[in-house]
């Protein structure tokens, strides 16, 4: 099946107007010796056949497991209205809004999204998105390196380990020093921060679900003229202290929790908000509000001299396509939940996780690793290897959590359990009963 409007008659007519006799003449510009010698792709299929094939593959995945897996990516409820908006062809088949007059839908949505992110984080400017939380962390790091002209970075070990691996990967060729330590205690940070430190990077809630106030850490960073970067789950910002209140310079993170499905790893949403003074070194698109020559309010891309299409190798980033449709999802989600709904969502998450802790710590041998407070995730220490426990729980129809040994070798018996508003009291009960049975 193809989507080509031309009939053979159309083609013949067009070729005649070009003075050519066949389509092959169009490719005379490619010398014969460079032509493809074989073209072995399978034959095309009808829509029905492709759907059958993909449905079959979809069913070969265990998507029905009750999900207590988090580790930075969460199973939240997404109202149907979000997808209804994303399905508007005017939104999803448009491209980067270079021609503002024809793109006011995209542009105004991005402006509203930028506003929502600023209101959540308390910071001054948000960009129009980056690819995901990990690349957002890398971009924030590079902003700090450029701004301070220093080359050492301090990242807390309670920052998502996947992002720390990404950071190492991206900075491998860049002569930067990456110090990974547990700096939850600000005294430890005080020992290692120096005049070579470009940035201090922390996460709240941290990877283990604990909620903190990093104000003293960021004050320390500031005293040393280093930038403070805080990675946060934007849903948690409904209730936890905001990055601005803690004194962060840059807030970034993963926006998947704002109305995006888990989708086996993407597309996700990297958000970033910064203090006013940093706006000109910020990566990513920025939409500004202005007026047209008749005084009507309109929106356009602005401060584009930071970007690749203008500055090329001097750009603040190479980013071009970002995650625009995902920002629309986040904006619609936040608009539907609203100011009070987001708080209520957080309360549900907090309560469900607390209930799960109660039920699970009642099991002999199962203990909490931390004292809290937590958001919707927590660490348990089990009397057995967490990988084996999880494997056995899968047979009971549950993804019981993330075995921390995967990224923290010293924590092989520790399990990271996430509980969102989607988990019912019954499901939490089954989790506890199941775990008790296998331990």
């Amino acid at each position, binding site marked *: 099946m193809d989507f080509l409007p031309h009939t053979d008659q159309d083609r013949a007519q067009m070729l005649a107007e070009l003075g050519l006799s066949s389509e092959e003449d169009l490719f005379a510009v490619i010398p014969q010796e460079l032509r493809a010698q074989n073209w072995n792709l399978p034959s095309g299929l009808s829509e029905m056949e492709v759907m059958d094939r993909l449905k079959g593959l979809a069913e070969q995945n265990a998507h029905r497991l009750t999900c207590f897996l988090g580790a930075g990516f969460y199973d939240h409820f997404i109202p149907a209205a979000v997808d209804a908006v994303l399905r508007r062809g005017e939104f999803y088949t448009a491209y980067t809004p270079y021609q503002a*007059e024809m793109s006011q839908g995209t542009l105004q949505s991005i402006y509203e999204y930028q506003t929502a992110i600023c209101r959540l984080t308390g910071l001054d400017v948000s960009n129009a998105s980056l690819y995901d939380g990990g690349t957002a962390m890398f971009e924030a790091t590079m902003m700090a390196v450029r701004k301070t002209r220093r080359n050492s970075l301090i990242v807390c070990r309670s920052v998502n380990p996947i992002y720390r691996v990404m950071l190492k990967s991206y900075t491998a060729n860049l002569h930067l020093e990456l110090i990974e330590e547990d700096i939850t205690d600000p005294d430890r940070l005080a020992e290692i921060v120096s005049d070579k430190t470009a940035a201090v990077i922390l996460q709240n809630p941290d990877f283990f679900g604990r909620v903190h106030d990093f104000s003293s850490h960021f004050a320390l960073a500031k005293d040393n003229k280093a930038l403070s970067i805080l990675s946060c789950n934007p849903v948690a910002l409904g209730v936890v202290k905001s990055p601005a209140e803690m004194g962060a310079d840059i807030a970034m993170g993963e926006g998947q929790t704002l109305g995006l499905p888990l989708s086996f790893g993407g597309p996700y949403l990297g958000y970033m908000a910064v203090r006013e003074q940093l706006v000109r070194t910020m990566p990513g698109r920025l939409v500004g509000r202005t007026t047209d020559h008749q005084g009507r309010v309109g929106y356009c891309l602005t401060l584009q001299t930071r970007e690749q299409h203008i500055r090329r190798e001097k750009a603040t980033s190479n980013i071009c396509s970002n995650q625009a449709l995902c920002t629309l999802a986040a904006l619609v989600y936040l608009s539907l939940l609203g100011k009070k709904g987001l708080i209520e969502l957080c309360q549900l998450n907090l309560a469900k996780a607390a209930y799960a802790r109660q039920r699970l710590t009642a099991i002999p041998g199962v203990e909490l690793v931390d004292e809290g407070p937590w958001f919707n995730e927590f660490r348990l220490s089990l009397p057995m290897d967490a990988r084996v426990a999880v494997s056995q729980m899968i047979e009971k129809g549950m993804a019981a959590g993330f075995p921390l040994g995967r990224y923290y070798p010293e924590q092989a018996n520790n399990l990271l359990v996430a509980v969102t508003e989607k988990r019912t009291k019954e499901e939490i009960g089954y989790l506890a009963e199941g775990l008790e049975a296998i331990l």
Partner: protein
Amino acid sequence: MKTIFEISRKDRRGAALPRPDLPRDIFEQSRIPENLRRAEPAELPEAAEVDVIRHFTNLSRLNFGVDVGPYPLGSCTMKYNPRFTEEVARLPGFANLHPLLPQLRRGGLLTQGALRVLYETEQLLCQITGMSAFTMQPMAGAHGELTGIMLMAAYHRHKGNQKTTVLVPDSAHGTNPASAAIAGYKVVTVPSKDGVMDPEAFEQKLDDKVAGVMMTNPNTLGLFNPHIKRIAQAAHEADAVMYYDGANLNAIMGYAKPADLGFDIVHLNLHKTLGTPHGGGGPGSGPVGVVERLADYLPISRVSQREDGSLFLNYDFPKSIGYIAPFYGNFGVTLKAYAYILALGGEGLKNVSRDAVLNANYLRVKLADKWQVAIDKPCMHEVVFTATDKAESFGVSALDVAKALMDEGFHPPTIYFPLVVKEALMIEPTETESKENLDAFVAAMAKIAQAAEKDPDSLHAAPRTTPVGRLDEVKAARQPDLIFRGTCPG
């Protein structure tokens, strides 16, 4: 239109959450302690679902997309996006799948369907490009470029080479030098001759410091560089890596493969060539393919197959550059491209390129009597015109032409790119435009050419039929208003 913040009214709710099925005291106990709590709630909108749907529906109507009309934005390949691919991405078996599942013990068994999609898409992309292995991790074209440069750097590091520069042609897309710079390389530009990168100039700039060269073929002028074999040979003799920017792959599918042209690394844009939607600026996907000698450096994890045919995530690549993405790339986009390739098949993809090249050449010839083509040669999938004559004779710029086209019902072509052409109009119709649409575009351009001569002020005043006219971009840059500061009405 009002912003969503202005439509808000206190206490309105758009989404209902599940009713709490837990005792009251659990809610009390689990509250975040005051010293860790934010002082004031975030000022988010408060709107009923009907308000939200109306707001965004009306916003969408201010937008022009491929679904509305022709969108010949050069370099972007704005082809029609088949609807069924949207269904595929929404299948619960994919949409609800947590990415960490295959990383659990025996977790591969939980995700064979998803792993199969990744594995087969990689194989199909190998077939299309001639490369030996792919990674689906890069989440956009520019991200693919950065990944490719990082692979290049890893290759040189392992060989103990001291390479510091990357060559790009003067017609290169901005993401090419930007990506090379982010990866720590210095960028050197090579001039063009007769519209394509000059092989002699290239050989002159090729020294032992050159890590690689980033090119696309056909280039951003839509011209195929016939010297490509000579260029590749010279590069390889200097142990420089040949990088192919796949943005223009729509021109050559089934006719030529980047591997055969001498390229070592390729990135593709799934949201251009392989039919996934542009989304208003993403999400895209920029998978990267490599020849055998670079495969060891690809990011992990990779999907490998056991003897029994089952698939698993393989991390056992000690020379890998590590993680480029948190997981397996924009999987939802990969799914759509996979479905698109299955639907079209080999024959269909070749027909895509055939009609894309036919359409661009048709425009090249039909526009020629009123408009000046930048390089007078047969083009491939896109063609660049220049409005220099109109600018010099009538004071009508490429920008004016773009704005006037909006009033004719077309999205404008790309303007002022490539940089090597003054007053550039870069036109890429793609294969999904019918002959009538192409003829209508030619007629609209003829009308604009006429207006340029007879009534240039009418073009300076364009667009007049869009929701807003030309915006004060200078004010937007000088007095940035990047966040709505009004309060939500009580």
